[in-house]
């Protein structure tokens, strides 16, 4: 009845699937969780959409740069909600005091991370897809009109969101719920530096190199180039991809080191503050 063969380094799609099933059961059982996925993206999109509408009727540049604000809001939401979707699924384990059960089970850390990554896409899809249709209905902005560029933007932003989510999860494992606030706030550090709503040249000269170290900066610059100059900057996407590869590897490495440290400090059984 029980499977007895187990290779030490095997990665099991069944265990990844089990974790996804666990989060799906949770989402399905809780309408406030589902509503929360859609609520903030909608509020944000509507607010910024009306602001763009107002500015566009009063300023020549913005009239030309149709959709820049709404586009930025929607892409920012991919970055922010992607990380939050990852982190909230992880936090569910801490809130329910289930992390010890998982760490004691045959689930590998890399399988846990994979399940959290897939769930961040699922949560993002539930929250963001309806909002993109609302953007078409309210403001005539069709995100899908970006075509293949959208795929490049999305992939790069998700990679960044996962890298940050993975590292923050490690911080929480090591330091307990006292570090929970990082999950909610860390991405806001990226907002001014990655130039979501303005070009990098707006930043002081000394700060611009910092912005160019962050992969999302290339995505937001790429989006503006596409919407304002009607040019797809493939070079920016490749630069973002290279930086994301480094950031993602650093995130996973940081997570594994923090998990190792949590084992040394006995934090996995005591997951409180």
């Amino acid at each position, binding site marked *: *009845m029980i499977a007895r063969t187990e290779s030490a380094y095997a990665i099991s799609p069944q*265990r990844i699937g089990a974790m996804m099933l666990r989060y799906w059961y949770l989402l399905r059982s809780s309408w406030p969780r589902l509503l929360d996925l859609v609520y903030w993206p909608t509020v944000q999109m509507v607010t910024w959409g009306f602001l763009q509408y107002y500015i566009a009727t009063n300023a020549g540049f913005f009239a030309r740069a149709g959709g820049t604000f709404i586009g930025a809001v929607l892409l920012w939401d991919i970055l922010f909600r992607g990380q939050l979707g990852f982190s909230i699924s992880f936090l569910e384990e801490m809130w329910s005091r289930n992390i010890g059960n998982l760490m004691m089970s*045959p689930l590998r850390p890399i399988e846990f991370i994979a399940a959290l990554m897939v769930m961040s896409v699922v949560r993002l899809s539930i929250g963001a897809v309806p909002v993109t249709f609302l953007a078409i209905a309210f403001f005539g902005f069709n995100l899908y009109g970006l075509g293949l560029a959208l795929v490049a933007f999305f992939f790069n932003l998700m990679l960044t969101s996962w890298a940050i989510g993975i590292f923050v999860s490690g911080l929480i494992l090591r330091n307990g719920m006292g570090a929970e606030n990082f999950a909610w706030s860390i991405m806001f550090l990226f907002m001014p530096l990655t130039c979501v709503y303005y070009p990098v040249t707006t930043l002081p000269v000394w700060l611009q190199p910092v912005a160019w170290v962050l992969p999302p900066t290339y995505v937001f610059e790429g989006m503006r180039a596409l919407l304002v100059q009607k040019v797809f900057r493939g070079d920016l996407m490749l630069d973002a991809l290279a930086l994301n590869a480094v950031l993602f590897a650093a995130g996973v490495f940081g997570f594994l080191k923090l998990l190792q440290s949590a084992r040394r400090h006995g934090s996995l059984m005591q997951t409180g503050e």
Partner: protein
Amino acid sequence: MPGSPPIAVERLVKVYKTIPAVDGISFTLAPGSITGLLGGNGAGKTTTIAMIMGLTTPTSGRVTVLGADMPRERYRVLHRMNFESPYVEVPMRLTVRQNLTVFGKLYGVENLRGRIAELGRQLDLADLLDRPTGRLSAGQKTRVSLAKALINNPDVLLLDEPTASLDPDTADWVRAHLQRYCRERQATLLLASHNMAEVERLCERVIIMKRGRIEDDDTPAKLLARYGRRTLEEVFLDVARGVSSEAAQ
């Protein structure tokens, strides 16, 4: 590894900053045995169990479970172990069946549906399988945690206070079930408990810890004889208050 003891602990030490939580303990458990780990608060029982499970890394010394070095080789044996502890819970929003399904898949249980039905019958959970775990009583939740701990028919079972907060009837029922499980499956059970009656009834061997060290280690009958006491509770109090077996007599 065939022939390896289910649990072997050698000169195990765990120091948190400068405080020794476990201080050079050694013991080996025989296959199919039920052993009680006794000790007051802060004696090092939970830290010892956490190191056996691979959740905490020892400062020095060695733990092997079914021949695998913990935590380094834990993935070789984790599917053959399981545990229950008051420090962890199964997700409360999920139904009992959903929780058992998730953990069954994590442990690679075959014919999972059948196994859940079997546990439902054995642990008197059949009528509760489709209810959210959070809506159950304390006793029912403990039975669910036990079902999770038994989902993979573990060869090594670690239980930390398995009957805490249960009424005497349910606690007695759980003990009987554990005894039957270990006998039928030849499973090895290490049980940390403050409940002396429970340890006396279930365990054929008792390890008493104090300040991270093993103060005594024997069968309940021999401990009672050595300390000249009638109950394990009296023995426990002697050890806790620093009365030696010679002085107790």
